[in-house]
């Protein structure tokens, strides 16, 4: 921790640079307009699986304002379908996904026809007059249907729906179970969810036939990835494509992917040579945005008499969509859901099989936490089952099994996780103290006597953050994993940082400015941040897997250090001392004899205008670029423990969230204000998954809760106050020592709510296994227990 905590690392500085958002001066994609801008509305498939027989477009042209009605075959001439078949995951195969359906459509809501008009309203009027004749085909909508032997293929290119098959750990773990004192087992169900960003997806594409350049503005997390995608699909040189992500209204992984409807917009612009805007509306968002988390699992855990874990044996069946999500595939969620089971603990023997099943539903892709919320929920529920089987307190059960480092001489855990030093025991100790655990347990016991059912839930987690090139590279996926910072000292002494990192509200750009400002002891508003625009930033990953500060911060720190070294050489020459004697205080050099009056502005003026005044005879670089990707480890593991205190009404089926605590170790904290809010926001998304959120499909694949009144996301009244604590173990992979935190909240919250609910229901002999835990599912469990006790 550097001593300057006023504005450097560790200062809870507010985001002054973001004040404009509170004044309505944000610039999101839909706020951007330009002359001649056209608008698109899509005619979308009404069936889960169908074949287009005929499209009649003429009536649409009767609408004043309709300029063009474009079908799949029109775009096929200039745009190739997505080909999402990562060589490194051989069985994860996917049919080509065209921008617009050509003949086979395999999820309700897939874009079929693009109506282009002078306004969105006119485009929608036109879309209503396009007649599409369909042949409805049989569909596989649930995981059970998709994995049945007689299953209908979700896409006729295949004769079954298996699209992922993998095993982590040992082939056989049966002897760990053979001589176990206790074996506990449970099944788990996780509902299909979607990210529900308040700002829906949106894109403007402008192909200029004169310059033969494509400009795209898009609400997105990884503009560099999208530059490569559009160049590949349209057969353009990447250098002729520029993608800019302006202000983004929330992303959460949902805006990490390449969508067919957005590709269609780009292709339409290329076809027409006109700027075209398309903003997804809320109904379309539910049926066409990436889905995630649909999974079924079964897990067994073997224990010795004292409660030590001897072995874990698990199977996860994950529900994907009709196509693999482009470009990173749909396997990420399922793989981490299986591999991360038991991660916080020494588990002895470990086996986790994972299967991915194609379904006639929208493609599923990474969403905040990427499978780790499922692994954590399974693990922590099993730990509680084990604690009651062995007869020890759930806190003790966790403490005696926590892992702190890799086993002696091991390169990875049984599941293949390369884990650095963990601090779960210290996090747990701090958590138990913060929540006054013993008092809550005593109060819980007393209240049960009066028929009031309180629950205390605990969830320990390990989370993979700052993921490097080791994840996607070997799988043959062209995904940038480095983060870069191009730092420029302006003639007036201010600094410009162009970073590959992007910010959808996490505050990463403010934290980077704060970090850089701290290195020169200047005010953060003296550091201008440039991000999200491939025309003005260095190449790099963007925002995914909680990498902003972990990797982007390290690049910024290194660039700042190199810049400072160059300036100190000039200053040392002027002040007749050694560069190592120098430091900076509020933007001016401090020499051996104290403040020198030599300001950054003065040095900058010398370097830019009066190089001859530099005693070295030459001047240092005014622009320095550093790029960083972790080389020694594939990712940086962070960890923490969640706890939630709830009250369940076993007759109404309602759950009240009384209080929530989390103690998280994300290494060096640059700005605690931003980090704590990332945790709170992530926790509430995790609570949404646990209690409210599910994409409800009818048995024939019709999405049935496509409004914000029916797909329930958490709102203010039901959410608890969340008490945030920290343990700080800097990572050794970087000089900065920061680990990722963006997903830590979402990873642990579903597990905490699940264990709290089963703790609350245990005196009734009831248990819930299917998330979200709606009133109906809670009451079904209670009524089943009542029937059994009769």
């Amino acid at each position, binding site marked *: 921790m550097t001593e300057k905590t006023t504005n450097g690392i560790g200062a809870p500085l507010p985001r002054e640079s973001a004040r404009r958002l509170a004044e309505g001066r944000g610039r999101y994609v839909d706020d951007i307009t330009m002359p001649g801008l056209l608008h698109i509305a899509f005619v979308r498939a009404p069936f889960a699986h169908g074949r287009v027989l005929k499209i009649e477009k003429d009536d649409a042209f009767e609408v004043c304002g309709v300029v063009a009605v474009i079908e799949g075959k029109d775009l096929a001439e200039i745009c190739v379908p997505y080909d999402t078949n990562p060589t490194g995951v051989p069985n994860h195969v996917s049919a080509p996904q065209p921008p617009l359906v050509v003949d086979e459509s395999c999820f309700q809501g897939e874009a079929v026809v693009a109506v282009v008009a002078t306004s969105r309203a006119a485009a*929608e009027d036109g879309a209503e007059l396009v007649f599409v004749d369909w042949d409805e085909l049989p569909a596989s909508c649930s995981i059970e249907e998709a994995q049945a032997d007689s299953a209908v293929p979700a896409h006729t290119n295949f004769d079954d729906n298996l699209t992922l098959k993998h095993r982590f750990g040992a082939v056989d773990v049966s002897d760990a179970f053979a001589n176990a004192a206790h074996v506990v087992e449970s099944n788990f169900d996780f509902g299909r969810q979607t990210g529900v960003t308040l700002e829906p997806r949106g894109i403007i594409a402008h192909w200029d036939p004169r310059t033969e350049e494509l400009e795209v503005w898009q609400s997105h997390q990884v503009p560099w990835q999208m530059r490569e995608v559009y160049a590949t699909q349209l057969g353009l040189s990447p250098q002729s494509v520029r993608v800019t992500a302006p202000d983004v209204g929330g992303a959460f992984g949902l805006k990490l992917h390449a969508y067919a409807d957005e590709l269609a917009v780009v292709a339409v612009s290329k076809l027409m040579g006109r700027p075209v805007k398309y903003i997804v509306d809320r109904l379309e968002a539910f049926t066409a945005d990436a889905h995630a988390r649909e999974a079924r699992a079964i897990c067994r855990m073997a224990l010795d008499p004292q409660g030590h874990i001897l072995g874990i044996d698990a199977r996860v069946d994950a529900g994907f969509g009709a196509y693999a999500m482009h470009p990173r595939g749909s396997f990420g969620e399922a793989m981490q859901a299986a591999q991360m089971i038991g991660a916080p603990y020494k588990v002895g023997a470990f086996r986790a099989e994972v299967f991915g099943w194609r379904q006639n539903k929208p493609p599923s892709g990474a969403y905040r936490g990427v499978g780790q919320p499922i692994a954590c929920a399974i693990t922590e529920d099993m730990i509680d089952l084990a604690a009651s089987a062995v007869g020890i307190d759930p806190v003790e059960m966790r403490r005696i099994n926590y892992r702190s480092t890799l086993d002696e001489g091991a390169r990875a855990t049984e599941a293949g996780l390369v884990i650095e030093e963990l601090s779960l025991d210290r996090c747990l100790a701090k958590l138990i103290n913060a929540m006054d655990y013993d008092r809550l347990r005593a109060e819980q016991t007393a209240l049960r006597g009066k028929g009031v059912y309180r629950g205390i839930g605990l969830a320990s987690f390990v989370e993979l953050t700052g993921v490097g090139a080791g994840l996607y590279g070997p799988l043959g996926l062209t995904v940038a994993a480095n983060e870069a910072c191009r730092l420029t000292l302006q003639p007036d002494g201010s600094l410009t940082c162009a970073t590959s990192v992007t910010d959808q509200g996490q505050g990463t750009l403010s934290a980077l400015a704060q970090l850089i400002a701290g290195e020169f002891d200047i005010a953060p508003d003296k550091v201008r941040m440039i991000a999200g625009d491939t025309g003005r930033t260095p190449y790099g990953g963007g925002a995914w897997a909680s990498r902003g500060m972990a990797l982007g911060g390290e690049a910024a720190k290194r660039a700042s250090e190199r810049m400072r070294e160059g300036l100190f050489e000039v200053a040392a020459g002027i002040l007749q001392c050694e560069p190592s004697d120098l430091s900076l205080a509020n933007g001016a050099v401090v020499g051996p004899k104290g403040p020198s009056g030599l300001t950054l502005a003065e040095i900058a003026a010398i370097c830019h205008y009066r190089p001859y005044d530099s005693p070295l005879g030459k001047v240092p670089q005014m622009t320095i670029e550093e790029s960083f990707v972790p080389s020694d480890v594939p990712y940086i593991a962070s960890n923490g423990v969640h706890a939630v205190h709830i009250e369940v009404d076993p007759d109404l089926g309602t759950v009240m969230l009384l209080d929530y605590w989390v103690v998280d170790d994300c290494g060096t904290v640059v700005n605690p204000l931003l980090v704590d809010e990332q945790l709170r926001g992530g926790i509430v998304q995790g609570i949404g998954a646990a209690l409210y959120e599910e994409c409800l499909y009818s048995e024939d694949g019709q999405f049935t809760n496509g409004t914000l009144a029916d797909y329930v996301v958490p709102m203010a009244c039901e959410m608890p106050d969340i008490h945030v604590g920290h343990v700080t173990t800097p990572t050794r992979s970087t000089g900065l020592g920061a680990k990722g935190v963006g997903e830590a909240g979402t990873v642990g919250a579903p597990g905490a709510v699940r264990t709290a609910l089963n703790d609350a229901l245990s005196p009734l002999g009831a248990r819930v296994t299917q998330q979200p835990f709606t009133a109906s599912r809670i009451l079904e469990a209670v009524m089943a227990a009542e029937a059994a006790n009769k």
Partner: protein
Amino acid sequence: MKSPDFAYLRAESLDEALIALADNEDGIVLAGGQSLVAALNLRLQAPELVIDINHIPGLDGINVTGDTVRIGALVRHAQLMAHSGATRALPLIRAALPYVAHPAIRNRGTTCGSLAYGDPAAEMPACAVAMDATLVLASTDGTREVSARDYYEGLYETQREPYEILIEAHFPVAPTGTRALFDEVVVRRGDFASLGLAGQMRLGGGSIAAFDLVAFGSEPAPRLLTDVAQIALGRVADTGLIADLAQAISDAVRPMESPLATPEIRRRQYRALAKRALRYAMELSDA
């Protein structure tokens, strides 16, 4: 999703609105617009003519007389909520209004609009049935009065003809000592109610002198629980009565089939909700 185009009439008088409605089979009235404009935006409605009655004078009054509170068609939920005379005279309305949606919706949504539309999960129709309110329907043929207890016939089915406008609601002033009974189960504050109870109760010498109760939310339309009320009359207000009434309510309701919950689960919830609501209503002092 952008609303389809439509003709717009800003009616300056009630007659002008009624004539336009009678002449245009595909015309629809706009008052608060909180349900209608959402349906227009979602393209679920494509009327040829929207008749805006917001500028008709004389429809936004709240009139409290000795035994009746008259609420005009343009009275916003928030306006009624802030009217001390009306809420003192109608304790059930005072208890239920805070459950209606959210502040921004209550600022524009009208109480009579909610009564006319008859959403099964809406709070105001349930209160109108419990309080035996009278709804005044106007058309080019004149006006007619319909009891709220007859007005709601089925899921979104009411006695209002397409050419009629509900211009006023008359709520009987609750006799002194009347206690409101209102409670509902929602997933989030302000959501459509999964199930709810709206009623009025008056105690005389510790026993039930008057009792009206309506179940709503899971029912296709507000359901007046007359035989439950019969059980209560004359009984002493104690935990025994609460248990009997809670069971009677649970037996009397007929929840719609829904993928969200089976009727059996809804009945169990009604029993618990009734206990909670009755316990609260009975403990209230005679304020």
